[in-house]
């Protein structure tokens, strides 16, 4: 968890705009995002449904729905610009081999009519250059790696013979079998019980260390983020409105949306009082958005928020937020009381 500054970029997203054709209209799901992913780090992308987090990662693997397309921008990975990939052949260079995914719902992510052994083996055969008995042994080893016992017996079993937590381990085994450089975990524990969730997160952490993976976590659960992430990118309405190291976000968030997200956590609720909730609803992405997308719901909105979209304001080498509140001429605004206390308590831990 060190502060090693020897960071090399492994993936670079530049000014990405992704649109969808829906019912004759055009929806802009990603509105000009730039993001760098560094080798070996664990990045969390946090946002609610409609923020575009799933769309963003799908575009890295060429898994956008048929009606979606990259309008502008680049996705630089190694020497390729993934945004220019058009054919299946192109994407097969990336999928699994370079970037693998752990999906959300373990109950439906596995083919119910194939043994789990065969499903893992499929990935091994595709990406590890092994065949026959060697492949078989590798599958057994992967099963052990993800914490499954009795591997010979389990190999021959079908998904419905496993519980949710175990199925998720199998999905993870499949992802690891691909031998990827980047692992994307799309809400990997949302569908699981809390005690299993802790185990799975620990497993992912261990595997990340063992296989030197760069990981992207997509989640809406800030508790999960606190556990696994080195850096956090907060998304709202197709834009990354704040990005920074985990400590920076948890103890010094600057964007009012991030404040709102943290404030609406039940852990910050005071019993007997109303729980903080964000008024209104996310904006309509079919229309062009003028200014800051969060402005209509932002209790701290300035006039300029309705007119001009804020750029990133730098708070540190690693911490940036897109809010006019950070402009030197902006009025000084403090986060709400409960949040301030939360930040202070948190900071104590770093020092104490």
């Amino acid at each position: 968890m060190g502060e090693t500054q020897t960071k090399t970029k492994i993936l670079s997203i530049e000014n990405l705009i992704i649109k969808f054709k829906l019912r004759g209209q055009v929806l802009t799901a990603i509105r000009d995002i730039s993001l760098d992913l560094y080798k070996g780090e664990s990045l969390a992308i946090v946002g609610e449904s409609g923020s575009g987090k799933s769309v963003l990662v799908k575009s890295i693997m060429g898994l956008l729905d048929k009606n979606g397309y990259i309008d502008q921008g680049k996705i630089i990975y190694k020497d390729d610009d993934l945004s220019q990939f058009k054919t299946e052949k192109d994407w097969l260079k990336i999928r699994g081999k370079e970037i693998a995914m752990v999906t959300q719902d373990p109950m439906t992510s596995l083919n119910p009519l194939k043994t789990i052994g065969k499903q893992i083996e499929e990935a091994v055969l595709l990406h590890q250059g092994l065949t026959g008995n060697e492949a078989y042994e590798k599958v057994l080893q992967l099963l052990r790696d993800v914490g499954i016992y009795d591997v010979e017996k389990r190999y021959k079993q079908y998904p419905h013979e496993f519980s949710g937590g175990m199925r998720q381990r199998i999905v993870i085994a499949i992802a690891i079998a691909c031998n990827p450089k980047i692992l994307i975990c799309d809400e990997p524990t949302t569908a699981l019980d809390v005690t299993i969730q802790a185990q799975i997160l620990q497993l992912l952490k261990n595997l990340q260390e063992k296989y030197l993976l760069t990981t992207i976590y997509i989640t809406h659960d800030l508790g999960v983020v606190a556990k696994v992430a080195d850096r956090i990118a907060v998304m709202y309405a197709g834009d990354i409105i704040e990005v920074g190291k985990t400590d920076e976000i948890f103890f010094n968030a600057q964007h009012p949306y991030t404040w709102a997200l943290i404030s609406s956590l039940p852990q910050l609720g005071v019993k007997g009082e109303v729980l903080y909730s964000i008024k209104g609803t996310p904006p309509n992405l079919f229309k062009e958005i003028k200014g800051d997308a969060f402005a209509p719901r932002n209790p701290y909105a300035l006039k300029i928020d309705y007119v001009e979209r804020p750029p990133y304001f730098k708070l540190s080498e690693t911490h940036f937020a897109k809010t006019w509140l950070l402009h030197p001429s902006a009025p000084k605004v403090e986060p709400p009381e409960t949040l301030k206390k939360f930040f202070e308590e948190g900071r104590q831990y770093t020092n104490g």
Partner: protein
Amino acid sequence: MAEKEILVEVKNLNVTFGKGKSQFEAIKDVSFEIYKGETFGLVGESGSGKTTIGRAIMRINEVTGGQILFKGKQINGKIPRDWDREITQKIQMIFQDPMASLNERAKVDYIISEGLVNTKKFSNEIERQEKVRNALLQVGLLPEFASRFPHEFSGGQRQRIGIARALVMEPEFVIADEPISALDVSIRAQVLNLLSKLQQENNLTYLFIAHDLSIVRFITDRTAVIYKGNIVELAETEKLFNNPIHPYTRALISAVPEPNPHKERNKTVEIYDPSQHNYEKNPPSFVEVEEGHFVLANEEEIERYRETQKLGVSQ
């Protein structure tokens, strides 16, 4: 301290599914009381039986042993007609999945009124429409939504419709079965606030079934933790979270991710091993270890817990 009125009482409840060799004891031996006006939390993971308890009280599931009492009178098994009608009205349920719990083919008006129509709780059409209107307003929806269909609404709105449906019956006791787990994070807060508001305005008592401990901590007065058909611990919510005694409760609480990176990273998650209990020789009972705080344990375990409690080991 004022004597609290017991509204719902569950005594040695047993719910067993199936017969013979393939039977399954979902609820083994559960007892607890819910006081009027409080929010009682029931926490457990999948397979614990928490939903079954809710359904047993709603009389959707049949009770195979024990009793459920409402205002002192039994409500499970065979009961007189008018008592049956009365509790149908007085005990209502809010379901988990707003996408699945509403009849897609029915208008919102119909969905909300169905209970009223079945129990004939109104004298004419005007009154019925008034009640539907009020219910919608109370949950923060516009009265004109009554003429629309469920698919025209978002998850959060659908859940509000579900709440309106329960509310229109003017109940005293509402069982909320994971009412917010299927909702988006920012909507959850809205619905929780709504439930609190409605509780105050309508003098409601809630049984709040959930698996999300942080929500439970915020909204409930007292909480019971259930594991594989047995309640393992019951206490005032704050006491439970500050001083969990049963090893399962401790494991559960330690597993909940906290929004504090340092705490989270340095935390060791406790793991619950059910085989640590030696219940063959020495069966457990529900023991009150401090006022209002009960734990399922046998004598030997109580001794041990008292020791660790004295030493102030609570995290």
